[in-house]
């Protein structure tokens, strides 16, 4: 039997994309009719155990208590600073020599790592002491750990906001591939969502993906009351690879071509 001739692609009554859209609309209609919701929307009103107002390091400690391969793992973290900035880490009770540019370090979950940021653009002589807390880790293929660090960006805007007396919380999350935005990612600029002070950034990040790190910027004093932090915050273990790496730097201003208003939050704040 002779096979029937094949019509040109795209001239069919309903092409592939049209059928896909139809299927998506049908699924959405069925979900609405059945009263079901997407998994992200289903998290609304859930009781979250953690929030960013907890003691720095407390979220990671509770993550360790849940078990799994987290205790003792060195998670590479890339700290990206603006041009001219320098960062020091607290090692053995004192800050290490400032490292200009950006830095790659390996941190552990369960601690709050305190840094000293100097060389802030347009604010000479001023210092900030932000903290980084890991809440999860990556599971890259063997040998690829340092190729895929968790990027933590300290932008000029956030540093200046902190110097003006504000408290900036930045939760870095691993993007859910199923909710990924169709934009090209850039290594020198990290996309972020701005939320209101009344919202919980950890909860928002959890609905967008998997929270990986919490960056808290606000402290302008090197001294800190130890009772305000989790144990081990003064000199937690840290791994600093002895190698020279080239890092991207954060531009002085945000990318003007990237209009994030086109991509609002996929759910109501």
């Amino acid at each position, binding site marked *: *039997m*002779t*096979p029937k001739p*094949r019509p040109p*692609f*795209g001239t*069919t*009554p309903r*092409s*592939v994309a049209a059928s896909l*859209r139809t299927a998506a609309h049908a699924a959405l209609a069925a979900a609405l009719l059945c009263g079901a919701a997407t998994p992200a929307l289903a998290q609304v009103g859930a009781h979250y155990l953690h929030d960013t107002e907890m003691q720095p390091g407390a979220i990671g400690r509770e993550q*360790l208590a849940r078990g*799994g*391969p987290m205790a*003792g*793992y*060195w998670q590479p973290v890339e700290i990206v600073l603006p041009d001219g900035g320098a960062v020091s880490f607290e090692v053995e009770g004192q800050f290490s020599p400032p490292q200009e540019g950006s830095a790659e370090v*390996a941190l552990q979950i369960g*601690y709050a790592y305190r840094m000293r940021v100097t060389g802030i653009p347009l604010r000479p002589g001023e210092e900030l002491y932000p903290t980084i807390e890991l809440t999860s880790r990556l*599971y*890259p*293929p*063997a*040998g690829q*750990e340092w*190729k*895929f660090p968790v990027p933590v*960006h300290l932008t000029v805007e956030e540093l200046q906001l902190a110097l003006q*007396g*504000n*408290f*900036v*919380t*930045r*939760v*870095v*999350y691993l993007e*859910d*591939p199923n909710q*990924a*935005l*169709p934009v*090209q*990612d850039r*290594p020198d600029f*990290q*996309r972020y969502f701005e*939320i209101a002070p009344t919202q919980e*950034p950890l909860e928002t*990040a959890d609905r967008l*993906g*998997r929270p990986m790190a919490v960056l808290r910027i606000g402290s302008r004093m090197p001294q800190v009351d*130890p009772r305000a932090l989790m*144990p*081990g915050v003064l000199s937690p*273990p840290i*791994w600093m*690879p*002895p*190698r020279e790496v080239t890092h991207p730097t954060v531009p002085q201003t945000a990318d003007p071509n990237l209009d994030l208003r086109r991509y609002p939050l996929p759910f109501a704040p």
Partner: protein
Amino acid sequence: MKRFLPFVFERRMASALRRRPTWSGIGASCAAGAFALAGCSLGESSRTTTIGSMAEAAPPSLSAEEFGSTPSPAPSVASQQTATGAPVATDIPAPPFPTGKTNVAKQPVPVAPPTNDFSVAPVMTEAAPTPATQPNTIQPVQHLESGEAPVAVIGEPPALPLTHSADHGPPIMTPWGEVCPHCQPVTAAIWKRKAEEAAAARNGFAGGPHVPQPPSMAPYTAGPQPYAGWRPDGLPAPWPLDEWIFDGGDANLPTVVDPDWVVRGLDIEDAVGHFDTLDGETVVSPSNRVAIYAPRFAAVRQTRGVVASAGRDYLAGMIDASRIHGQDVHAPVTTALQPIQPQTELGQRNPISLLERQAIRRLDGARVLARFVDTLQLYEDFHLTRTGEFLQGEKPRLAKSMDAAMTWTDLKAVQVIVDEDVPLVEKNAVKPDEARIYERQGVPCIRVVKMASKGAALPGEEIEFTLRYDNIGEQLVGNVTILDNLTTRLEYIEGTAQSSREAEFFVEENEARSLVLRWEIVDPLPVGQGGIVRFRARVR
């Protein structure tokens, strides 16, 4: 490290011994080395006989003009296995070995006639296993005269001289071969180095820049799988899924093609091929799924004002209750115990679950595809890509990028396919003049295999994808169409689509703001032939 060695040693030895029967073919199920050699010869003769019978029963190739006007090929194709074929035993003297084990004799390497014309009829080539098809062959240690240093013959890696320290007993399996147990203490450094090289070769970054790793990071990353294969119970690999992007397969509802050519059920990330049979039926064949490690990050920012001081009004006149002495002691912890990772391996998953299926057809020789811009790339330079035939030696590398290739093969046995039934493989058959005939009613089938040039990529990097399709059925098929629905994180690079056969290429935007790629192969696909389509995509 020394405490760690015996544990690994026993595990590797046990796993290697478990795997060993498969390396020696049919006869390897026998423990004795002499019987293993005979079994190999028997399997080889059976396979050779099968190929001959397949060549006689193979349907003639049809041209495009003949498609449709030619009646169906033979309704059944019989393949035979005779156990009385003359054993082909290569007479290679085995090295002196006190345990009586014998070296596995390597078969002669067939040389395929080189050609660049993909349209010519394939040349019948006896597919004797090449040395590359037996990478797991373990050769014993050659023990020399007393007092001399024995030499470990470990296959492909260069032999390393070992210091002789005592009389030698049976060899011990190591990750890279066999060594004398008495030589083990003095070869601990070599052991460690070779194990690291073997791990580096498995992980695919041998030769790359050496990056220092924290001490506690190594045990978790020693295996080919992330975290040495560990994952929570009930979750499939790769895990966790939010760090990977996928392309290929047929997820969710199966893809179907309506009589009016409407494709339904083609989800994001799906890659399928569909074709028409002589009966007018449209059949969909999904490809395997390719996983690429490409995590991407974003952030949520919140800015709040800080209250510099907070005053609290306490109730006046409240009676201060007596408290238990010692309850109000605040003793902040000044030290922290660093958790240490367990110095053990959690097991490694070997690619033994790879199901394979091989068509009853002629075996093509290696040839370079004619209509490609470049020759085969490194990641796709498999025997499977060139000829559509699975080889044992390619399984570990293919298993890294192929998740569910539904093929079945056994080069040492008669090659059969029974629809959705477990094929019966006759091993160690000693009955003379026994023939097993499997009849199939001319089932049409194509196989689509997808490969990626990288297993991990950062945003902005380019990945090259290759889809190999083969007509492994018993009918001429027509209107072969390859569909690939790209995920959001993959952006097709314009003008990079290629095809080894004449095809028309179309793209259309999908709902994930990416593209659906479509190749329509112009000519019908005869039995036993296939082609390759290739494209490049950028990771967003």
